[in-house]
């Protein structure tokens, strides 16, 4: 059984335990839950970061995430998926993104969570701006995020 995926873009923080409970409560067919939390770091390439501001493309961001969740569900036997992406100004140590995958077996849950994170990084319309002592600057996309996505098209 696959529950309807949860996809939320919000300013507020999320509670991993509550999201896992929402995915698993009352069910006894789930054997594995993988969670990935992305967290705002206080230092990037040797430079102290005061805060991160996340901008997104409303509408398209939700649609892109939903498209990738559907793709993950067609690749792996998943019992459920939840994705929450925060936007707005975040301080170092704060959560940015949560990806939860549930399945009967661990391999599917792990693979789907990695796949979803790789695709979110490369394709979901979000942009990060960093504040540091040097001022504010938009974060450059990293070419190895595109390489991370490419590995899923070979299998």
């Amino acid at each position: 059984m696959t529950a309807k995926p949860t996809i939320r873009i919000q300013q507020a923080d999320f509670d991993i335990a509550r999201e896992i409970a929402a995915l698993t409560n009352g069910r006894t067919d789930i054997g594995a839950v993988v969670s990935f939390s992305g967290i705002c770091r206080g230092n990037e390439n040797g430079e102290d970061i005061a805060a991160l501001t996340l901008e997104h493309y409303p509408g398209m961001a939700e649609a892109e995430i939903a498209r990738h969740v559907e793709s993950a569900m067609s690749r792996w036997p998943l019992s459920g998926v939840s994705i929450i992406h925060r936007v707005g100004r975040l301080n170092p140590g704060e959560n940015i993104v949560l990806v939860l995958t549930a399945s009967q077996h661990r391999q599917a849950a792990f693979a789907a969570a990695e796949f979803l994170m790789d695709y979110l990084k490369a394709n979901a319309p979000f942009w990060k701006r960093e504040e540091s002592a040097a001022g504010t600057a938009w974060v450059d996309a990293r070419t190895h995020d595109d390489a991370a996505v490419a590995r899923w098209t070979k299998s």
Partner: protein
Amino acid sequence: MKVKYFAWVRERIGKSEETVEPPANVRTVGDLMTWLARRGETYAHAFEKPRIIRAAIDQAHVKQDAVIAGAREIAFFPPMTGG
């Protein structure tokens, strides 16, 4: 058609969206960037390196040779850095 800008494309142009009516010879996303770049200094700055700008038509990623006819909403933005 409505055009939307995000991240530093938005900042350089100084607005997040506007409605434009390009002439008929502006056929593709690439043509539209060239046409927009001629609207003034801020646009020229935003589109100075068109090859690195990403685009979406009606909220789906497209390449620069995508035809814009029939589009309701076209968005321009830098490579994404979410997650």
